[in-house]
């Protein structure tokens, strides 16, 4: 008898809680998912641009460029977990770890090229080289993720299970899976089963 009463009390408490907290258009949870989706879109755009430029210019990526891609993919894992299993501080922590790693690799590459007299590497957009854009993008992810962590209300509600949400989850996973697979194939062709060349000019397995 007692467990049943406890169950009813819990139900009543949940209903009262839901009624006392009307979810506005920009509730904490909705904001969390918007942050997550925007960041995933940004990371996907970075990886797509990198792959398109790689194949269009016939420039196999350097080892540090590959590590930056790995950093962005690592950051995307936390965002994908947010979409798949609900918003959690632990998922945001994975995003931060991945972005900090990408920023570290970008800083390393900038330190090799930024000194006066040193040669720059790769192309530039608006006069800024790709590794510097990479650092800016990683810094943006760190700032946005830190801000997103602050909205405490997002962790209390169960994740939405609507049809549009399922579509967003499926599309995000499909896109990131394809991008990761493209990089696996590309790296295998470029490096083969040995260390990647320091200054790649062709794909080892295609010669």
């Amino acid at each position: 008898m007692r467990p049943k009463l406890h169950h009813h009390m819990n139900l009543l408490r949940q209903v009262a809680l839901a009624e006392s907290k009307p979810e506005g258009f920009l509730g904490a949870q909705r904001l969390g998912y918007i942050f997550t989706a925007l960041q995933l879109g940004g990371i996907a755009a970075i990886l797509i641009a990198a792959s398109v430029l790689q194949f269009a210019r016939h420039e196999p990526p350097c080892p540090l460029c590959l590590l930056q891609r790995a950093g962005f993919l690592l950051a995307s894992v936390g965002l994908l977990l947010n979409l798949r299993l609900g918003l959690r501080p632990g998922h945001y922590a994975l995003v931060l770890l991945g972005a900090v790693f990408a920023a570290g690799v970008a800083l390393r590459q900038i330190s090799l090229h930024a000194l006066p007299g040193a040669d720059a590497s790769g192309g530039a957009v608006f006069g800024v080289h790709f590794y510097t854009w990479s650092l800016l993008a990683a810094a943006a992810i760190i700032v946005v993720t830190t801000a997103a962590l602050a909205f405490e209300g997002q962790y209390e509600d169960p994740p939405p299970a609507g049809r549009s949400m399922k579509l967003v989850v499926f599309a995000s996973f499909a896109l990131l899976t394809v991008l990761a697979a493209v990089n696996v194939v590309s790296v295998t062709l470029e490096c083969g089963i040995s260390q990647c060349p320091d200054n790649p000019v062709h794909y080892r397995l295609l010669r």
Partner: protein
Amino acid sequence: MHRAFIRPRVPAAGANTAGEIDLAMMVLIFALLLATIATAWLGRRRLTVSLFLVTLTIAALWLLHHATSLLDLRL
């Protein structure tokens, strides 16, 4: 030659030979990333986090190796 990726000098006898690692580490890193995304899709949180940490550790060690071999450091 690209200034950033000059091969490390051949180490003296008995020196640390970390600069001579000859494994497909980058292929391994990206394959692990693909597996991490696949486990996230399956909803396996713990396995995903474990794979994430393994991948991040390998990638960080690779970066350390790159930095130290270029500077000819003996760590």
